[in-house]
């Protein structure tokens, strides 16, 4: 708690910088990641992330310093090279893209680890801290590093805003973009470069191994909440930023802890919650929808039963007992009872001495279900030429989902019929 207060009061300048840096990095890579995701190049991001490691090591070996700009350039070069190699392999051989990505990722990463081990064994004092590129360390985002990475992150955001229209079209319909004269090759190059930069700036905080999660997961989570690309970009940035802050906090309170895995865990939690809770697309929404459908089916079946009983006895005005209802249709007693009570609350039924009676509204609704059932049976026999003894089951479900507009069209297409295929009157 002490740590928490200390961190989030932001009194320490270092904390402010580290937080600012993490937020910038995470948000910018999340925004670029949206386009990578929509272009279905998520795996490519992973390959680039792993491929920057040899670049960082080479830059260090050649320059002998940990100057962030030089390391950035090294990372950029090998990251970019990996993409060129993937493209080359895919277009010039029979190897498919997923295989090419797998190959390039492991080869580049292997070389990177090799170089890193070699550097560590030289005993060069300046090398300490290079291994942080593996799993990230947000707390080391200070001074020169912060400026270098921060500037690139801001440039990324500016580029996305500037090229929003072009990148969107590229991701949605590349062929069309070319036919209106857009420089598609150039735009592809731009998006590739943005992706590489996003990875390069992110590795300081997250590390190469888990960087792909920073690129893709916020975008995937954001996609669940919205159907609007602009909103998706903002949401992804916010999700990224939040996990960035969380990562910085962890890195600050437990400096020996690698930041990357923490950030990835947090952003993955957000993603899982999004999958579960998002309106419309999420699991919870789906379960609720199914339950609503189930109650609706139960209620309409009860109203239908009461109406049919009235039809049978030519008397809609008298009350029926529960047993009378269950005789005609097998519904679990408890379920039927709670359904009846709910219908009573809604004003579709009245209760008289433990017996149930349709109100005028209930009768209307029951009649409609019966009508739809019979109309649909008629439609199936007339238009699909199904045998009349095969249509009942189908109509049992369809009767609950037909909208008033469809009902009108059914009636018109069937030419205002009187009788269903079983010669029952259509009410």
């Amino acid at each position: 708690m002490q740590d928490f207060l200390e961190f989030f009061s932001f009194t320490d300048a270092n904390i402010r910088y580290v937080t600012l840096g993490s937020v910038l990095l995470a948000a910018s890579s999340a925004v670029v990641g949206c386009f990578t995701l929509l272009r279905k190049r998520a795996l490519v991001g992973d390959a680039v992330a792993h491929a920057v490691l040899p670049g960082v090591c080479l830059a260090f070996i050649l320059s002998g310093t940990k100057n962030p700009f030089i390391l950035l350039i090294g990372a950029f070069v090998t990251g970019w090279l990996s993409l060129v190699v993937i493209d080359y392999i895919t277009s010039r051989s029979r190897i498919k893209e997923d295989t090419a990505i797998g190959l390039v990722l492991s080869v580049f990463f292997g070389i990177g680890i090799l170089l890193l081990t070699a550097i560590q064994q030289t005993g060069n004092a300046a090398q300490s801290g290079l291994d942080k590129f593996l799993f990230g360390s947000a707390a080391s985002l200070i001074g020169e590093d912060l400026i270098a990475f921060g500037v690139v992150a801001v440039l990324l955001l500016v580029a996305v805003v500037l090229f929003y229209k072009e990148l969107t079209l590229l991701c949605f319909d590349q062929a069309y973009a070319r036919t209106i004269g857009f420089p598609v090759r150039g735009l592809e190059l731009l998006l590739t470069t943005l992706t590489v930069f996003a990875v390069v700036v992110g590795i300081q905080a997250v590390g190469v191994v888990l960087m792909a999660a920073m690129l893709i997961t916020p975008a995937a989570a954001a996609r669940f909440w919205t159907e609007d690309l602009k909103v998706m970009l903002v949401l992804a940035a916010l999700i990224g930023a939040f996990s960035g802050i969380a990562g910085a906090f962890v890195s600050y309170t437990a400096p020996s802890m690698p930041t990357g895995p923490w950030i990835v865990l947090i952003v993955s939690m957000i993603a899982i919650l999004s999958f579960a809770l998002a309106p419309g697309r999420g699991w919870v929404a789906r379960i609720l929808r199914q339950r609503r459908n189930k109650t609706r089916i139960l209620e309409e079946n009860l109203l239908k039963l009461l109406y049919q009983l009235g039809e049978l006895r030519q008397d809609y005005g008298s009350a029926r007992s529960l047993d009378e209802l269950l005789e005609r249709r097998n519904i679990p007693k408890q379920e039927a009872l709670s359904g009846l009570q709910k219908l009573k609350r809604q004003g579709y039924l009245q209760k008289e001495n433990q017996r149930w009676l349709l109100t005028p509204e209930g009768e209307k609704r029951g009649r409609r279900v019966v009508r739809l059932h019979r109309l649909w049976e008629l439609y199936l026999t007339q238009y699909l030429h199904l045998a009349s003894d095969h249509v009942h089951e189908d109509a049992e479900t369809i009767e609950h989902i037909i909208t008033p507009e469809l009902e009108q069209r059914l009636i018109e297409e069937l030419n205002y019929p009187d009788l269903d295929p079983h010669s029952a009157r259509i009410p």
Partner: protein
Amino acid sequence: MILQVDNPVVEVHDLTVSYDRKPVLWGIDLTLPAGALVGVIGPNGAGKSTLIKAMMNLLPVSSGYVRIFDQPLKQVYSRISYVPQRESVDWDFPASVFDVVLMGRYGQLGLFKRPRKADQDAAMEALEKVGMQSFANRQISQLSGGQQQRVFLARALAQNADVYFMDEPFAGVDIATETAIIQLLRLMRDEGKTVIVVHHDLQSASEYFDWVVLLNMRLVASGPTEQVLNQELLEQTYGGKLTLLSKVGDLLRKQEFPAREKS
């Protein structure tokens, strides 16, 4: 029966297109007149879509060239419009119907510029022409096949082009959409636009088009519909695959031969 016209809108000269070295279109020589509603017709795998894509410079060609208004494609982007196959994009993309139609204005706008009010008006007008104005704010993931096709058509209309290339606009759409589209295409032709349509249904072809291109890996016929759609030419197009032709194509691929000695 290959009729060449003077002052063609589209000129295809000795066009050969290969996939993985195997030619799928052999030496197409074709000219199309202005203000015509042209149907490109042939069996599955005849290379109809390939021809359109090669015309739009979306595929590398092994030989030959395409000229539109007697200019290379690069000079006339603003005068042409392409309607890709509906399945060629992922309709689960986070965009509204209006967003997609507005893309039709991007060519005129050029890079960096945001769509202006006038572009929005043009997009709305295009949506009205295809009867989709009430769907402007609908998410594209919620559209039916026919509605998707109308949206693509509206996007092309928003371009205000002179020549339209459409890849299977009638594939998998409901009858109401098909009727609406063909009416629209006729309207465009009457305004002097040239519309080139890849079509797979022979039945409706004679009714829809006033110029027909019969294609089956090579050009079988090109001319006014009533002269082209006859028994003999249709048999040449649909009857019996040219097995020798595809065998030679397979050889080219296996031996990694270029389709032309010099490219």
